[in-house]
């Protein structure tokens, strides 16, 4: 019994890690007023980049770095389209997703099915990991888990406790007023989109080099879309994103626990997506004014308009 609880908890945290990374990135991006529906594509690109680079160089950290750069670079496309060209952000984001999925499939063709032998060592935090039950599950984990939690907390600190954070949030609420205070809102939005892309790519890197240690086309399996739903569920707050992401990690793991009960595995595989629809439904029952959505989300800003 004890074994099952520990392993369930551990797998929950592992499954929630990419969701947390991608959600945190999307929160930063949306807080600046830019909707980025390209998460799924950037995640896939991050996954394939990390996998190839890790395999060829033998260093997982180089793989992570390469994924980060790839995610940030490809996100510039969305930034140019939505900030500079003031294009429709939904269309541009969808295009980014399709581009990312297609590109990753093409680049990764010859790597499909190859196992990754290079392992990323788990990080074990002394003392804390000795706590009975949860110690081993929570404090002896892949470095991605600690990175994700630290980045989420860091994102919260950035948004709520720094000047740049006030500038990002103000840009999402009212870019015109923000610009009249002498802030370069174009720069802020570029920065936010690119940071968000980097986070999505990290999520992908976790999937390919830590979670499944292999690459297959479409392995992101809609996690990017779940992250976008979680952004709303977390009410655009990285702090809330932490437990929201691990809650969904739990739903991913529950499928394996329930398989022995004779429930169709196909049905169980649908669970995370059904849950996504459910939370979106629940949250839309809430008073939209209390949702806290950035007021100018997905509205392009044109300078010098009367």
């Amino acid at each position, binding site marked *: 019994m004890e074994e099952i609880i520990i392993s369930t908890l551990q797998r929950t945290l592992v499954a929630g890690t990419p969701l947390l990374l991608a959600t945190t990135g999307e929160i930063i991006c949306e807080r600046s007023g830019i909707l980025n529906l390209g998460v799924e594509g950037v995640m896939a690109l991050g996954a394939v980049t990390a996998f190839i680079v890790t395999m060829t160089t033998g260093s997982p950290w180089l793989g992570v770095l390469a994924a980060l750069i790839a995610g940030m670079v490809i996100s510039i496309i969305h930034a140019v389209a939505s900030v500079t060209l003031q294009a429709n952000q939904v269309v541009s984001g969808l295009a980014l997703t399709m581009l990312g999925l297609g590109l990753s499939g093409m680049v990764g063709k010859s790597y499909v099915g190859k196992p990754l032998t290079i392992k990323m060592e788990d990080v074990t935090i002394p003392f804390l990991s000795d706590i009975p039950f949860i110690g081993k599950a929570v404090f002896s984990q892949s470095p991605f888990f600690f990175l994700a939690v630290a980045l989420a907390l860091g994102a919260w600190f950035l948004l709520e406790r720094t000047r740049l954070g006030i500038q990002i949030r*103000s840009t999402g609420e009212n870019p015109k007023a923000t610009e009249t205070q002498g802030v370069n809102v174009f720069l802020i939005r570029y920065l936010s989109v690119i940071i968000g892309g980097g986070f999505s790519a990290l999520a992908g890197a976790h999937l390919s080099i830590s979670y499944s240690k292999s690459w297959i086309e479409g392995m992101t399996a809609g996690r990017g879309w779940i992250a976008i739903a979680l952004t709303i569920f977390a009410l655009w707050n990285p702090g809330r994103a932490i437990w929201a992401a691990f809650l969904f990690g739990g739903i991913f793991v529950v499928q394996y626990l329930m398989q022995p009960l004779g429930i169709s595995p196909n049905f169980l595989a649908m669970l995370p997506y059904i849950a996504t629809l459910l939370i979106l439904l629940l949250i839309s029952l809430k*008073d939209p004014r209390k949702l806290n959505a950035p*007021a100018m989300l997905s509205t392009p800003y044109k300078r*010098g308009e009367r």
Partner: protein
Amino acid sequence: MQIPAGLTRILMKKIQRLEMDGISKSFHGIPANKDIHLSVASGEILGLLGENGAGKTTLMNILYGLYQPDAGQIRINGMPVQLTTPLDSILHGIGMVHQHFMLIQNHSVIENIALAYKDTPFFFPKIKLREKIQQFSRQFDFTIDLNKKIWQLSAGEQQRVEIIKALLNGADLLILDEPTSVLTPKEIEELITILRRMKQDGHCVIFISHKLDEIMTICDRVTVLQKGRIVGGADTRKTDKKTLARMMVGREVVFNINREALTRGNPVLRASRIHVTGDMGLPAIKGISFDLYENEIFGIAGVAGNGQRELAEAITGIRKIDKGQVIINGKNITNLSPRKIYDHGISHVPEERIRFGIAPGLFLYDNAILKQHHLKKFSRGHFLRYRYIKDHTRDLVTQFNVSTPSIDSQIRNLSGGNIQKLILGREISEHPQLLVASHPTYGLDVGATEFLRQHLLRLRSQGSSILLFSEDLEEIFELCDRIGVLFAGEFMGIFDSDDDRLCDIGLMMAGSKRF
């Protein structure tokens, strides 16, 4: 020679004198400012007087670095400066309080100030700035809860946040764009006190307004703009209101238009104890009742944001009525759909005409039947009868004097006045029983304003009832047979237009007197 903003700021301690020399600016080929010369010196309050659309705001946005002039030069203490972004202007010591406040509604006071202040520390800005702001507020006698969200503040408090923002950045020159338009009379008094104190401290102030009284009481000098040009200027001690009014409008102003005496007819609409909720979920209209009659204009006066919009929307079916009843000609229309209410004879000229009155990208003839497309004469089944629609549009354009190249133009290309004329034409072409008109002449030039007012009066003499919302007291007194003063969602009183008690309308609008 151009000197970078940061450097000039070090070279020159304080703005002693600012000059704008030959400034011109046009938008899409339409000139907004032409060859403007003006100057302001330390310790002086300069009034900038002009009608809506005279180019006052454009000129000040140039000074604040939001727009670039097509020609001309700006000099501070005799040195030419280039102001390409608001940051340049802020660094040069220019601050601006915009007519529509540049505040983030969902953020707290302190977050708004931290956003604006140029030396905000990177880490923990809210904690570190608090002490400085409090000290500063004491100096100017401001009392504001720094943790409150902007939307929780009154207009006067929001304005004070704007002033703190500007002064904290070391503004020597403060531009105030129509600062009194949203204030109660008491808040206006407080603002004047603040401005006088700033003047003593050696600040320059540019005060934009189209209200003559204010200009006369507050300013030392006044410059008058008309259609983007300077048409005159004077020392306020050596001029009078009449002279300024003539300069502003360019002709003798007839302060009264003819309202023929009519006895009011049968009751048209009865609203009894209606309650309506505002956008923020708070009660906006708190159980008010009134009747409207044929041959009558009923005016609602009040400072913006006291429930006018919610009331107009509730009666026309756009907003839900929580409690109470609206009855037209004996039929209960409470919470019917806007279309049904329109079919019961209630038309609506909405506020913010471009957002709510038209579909900007559609053609004139589409906009002319936005509400009537379902009528038999304009459609058969699912198909529109464009021949009749276009004939109808041509009639409206002639009858209401809409100046447009053709009815096949997109309506967004028309000026505000012409858009409003078409909207009014559309709304009254079916001879409504009741017209709800929200700020129908807001922002229009004198010609269009007069035209619209004449049409409202004509509608009245044809037997309709009109419910008029206006912030322009002159308009209210000119047009209305009865006047209700709305404050915080309640009537402070309802009067016939010749009632003596109306001399206290200012107090009623501020909520400090109730009959």
